[in-house]
């Protein structure tokens, strides 16, 4: 596909998602409450997104990933929350 064709096919969809992210950040700011590691992780991921060059999707995924390498002692619950809370 040419760059023109990529933009023709995906620009409106990407624009829609971009505005959704902006509105989400506004919504979080308007809401009351304390800090949350997911909010901080999201901001860090946005920085990874903003860096120039290919591999943006991979960089965002890496920035939201658990960087440790050893199995944890025990699984408490089954769910994942989308960002690593740290130790």
């Amino acid at each position, binding site marked *: 596909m040419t760059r023109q064709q990529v933009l023709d096919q995906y620009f409106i969809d990407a624009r829609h998602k971009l505005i959704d992210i902006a509105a989400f950040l506004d919504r979080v700011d308007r809401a009351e409450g304390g800090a949350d590691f997911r909010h901080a992780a999201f901001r860090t991921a946005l920085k990874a997104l903003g860096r120039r060059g290919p591999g943006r999707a991979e960089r965002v*995924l890496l920035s939201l990933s658990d960087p440790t390498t050893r*199995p944890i002692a025990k*699984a408490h619950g089954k769910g994942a929350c989308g960002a690593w809370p740290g130790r």
Partner: protein
Amino acid sequence: MRYIEPHGHMVSRTTDDYRDMATAGCAAVCEPAFWAGFDRSSVNGFHDYFCQLTDYEPQRAAKFGMAHYSWLCINPKESEDVALAKDVLAIIPQFLDRPNVLGIGEIGLNKNSRNEVRVLELHVDLAARTNSLILVHTPHLEDKLKGTNLIMDVLRGDRRIRPERCIIDHVEEHTCRRVLDAGFWAGMTLYPESKCSPARAIDLLDLYGQERIWMNSACDWGVSIPLAVPRTALEMRRRGWTAEEVDKVVFQNPAQFMGQCPKFRLPAA
């Protein structure tokens, strides 16, 4: 168009879904054992589930001209209880000879715990002893990268396991290349809220090629789309892929991987 759904949890889907998939060109659906949304209280629950996967579900699929294959295991979400897992592993061999069973799956990790790793090793040993294909589930979200690396360590640590007989599913941009570089097959799951979107899955095909890779809907009882594979095939065509190129990814590739099990046969066209 023809396609294979290589990962669908049809026990959670309606008969209307079977009809829609058949209408869209689905020739075969392959169903790994997974978590029911609640923990089963004993091995008897798994026995009944394996009967459903190997007896009842193939009959449902056959009504729509679709072949149905299954994979057996105790899912990583229930693997924290090693004693229960050992009970379940003990009954799996009595089902492995059933005509629609392709191998062991979907095994893997969920929260990357020590017990999950132990149960994964036991499943890998069973697959090696029975010369079975392996279908691997990788963890969700922030746990995926670490879990994928741990899973590959376990598989590579068992010298009896050949990577071309293992598919590591639910890859994304940060795990796809390392899975393929290690010689494994890679599965891309098309989910509306997590894992891959159709556009990103096609990007991965553009980036890493069309060998040893498939796409699936992993449709289950959660938010998922049984027609995700044919819809992505349509998007591939809109991006300029030829019908033959699409056919390779959505039909020939899964047939090639699962055809390593002699029981895998497609219904006559």
